[in-house]
């Protein structure tokens, strides 16, 4: 799977929600695009990741 331009090997079948938790993302502070489409937050637990997937994860930090 490609995540933010880097190849990541999925060891097991995983939902997007579990993957994000493993990678220590705070889901309240991110946005995720999968294969060119925004993934609604409410469906993170239903999206099952595949080797062919390309993810872009944007992590927002505070300040403005």
């Amino acid at each position: 799977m490609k995540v933010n331009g880097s190849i990541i090997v999925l060891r097991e079948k995983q939902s997007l929600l579990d993957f994000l938790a493993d990678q220590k993302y705070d889901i309240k502070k991110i946005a995720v695009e999968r294969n060119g489409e925004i993934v609604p937050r409410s469906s993170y637990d239903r999206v099952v990741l595949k080797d062919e997937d390309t993810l872009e994860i944007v992590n927002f930090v505070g300040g403005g």
Partner: protein
Amino acid sequence: MKVTVNGHRLELDCQTAFQVREQIGSQTDIVILNGFQIDKDCKITEGDALTIIRKGAIPKREELEGMMMARHTSNVYEKIKKGKVAIAGLGGLGSNIAVMLARSGVGQLLLIDFDVVEPSNLNRQSYYISHLGLPKTVALKKQLGEINPFIKVETKQTKVTADNVEELFVGYDIICEAFDQPEAKSLLVNVALEQLPGIKIVAASGMAGYDSANLIKTVKPMKNLYLCGDFENEARPGRGLLAPRVQICAGHQANMVLRLLLGIEDV
């Protein structure tokens, strides 16, 4: 020869820019030829746009817009004037973005913030002592009126939530995400990308402190999302927000907005 002088199409018997100045005004007047202020005389050709400005004089309202925008290339200004841009959050990023876009002549701005101006805002936000206590929407709209009265400025003093994103931003070409809190940034970006297909978002992440200015950049991580900042330096105790990096980031956002309005989608 037919040329445009201060917004009026004129037939003049002139070969150079300074000959036009002689006919229209006096020797000390400023001459702007096709968006560039000249101090040496040069030849003009059919269709050129000249602006002749008398120093120190206050022009009539109908001449003012042309004079203000004389430094833009004319086809650039026409496109920017059609732009509709919403700015969500009127703090260090949003207030400065609004000022830059108003100066550039973006035709319609929507300013959204729920808060009032307070003393700790003045270190980086575009407000004055005289604005303390005023809603930021009101204080900023006043300033924009003094900078460029020829644009439409709408304001909404409200908090952006998952339930009002669509009604607030529908009809706008571009949203500038200019919030402070990461949760608010994420919420707006997620909901707007889901509910408003085609809208472009220019967001920001990471501009606190006084790390190198060169670390702040613009990227396009998603189809309709542009992101400006260094992506790392969050505001926290010991690393506050300072005017230069906040304004550099605001400048990145404003420039990306102008590029998008001109049809350029690359960063």
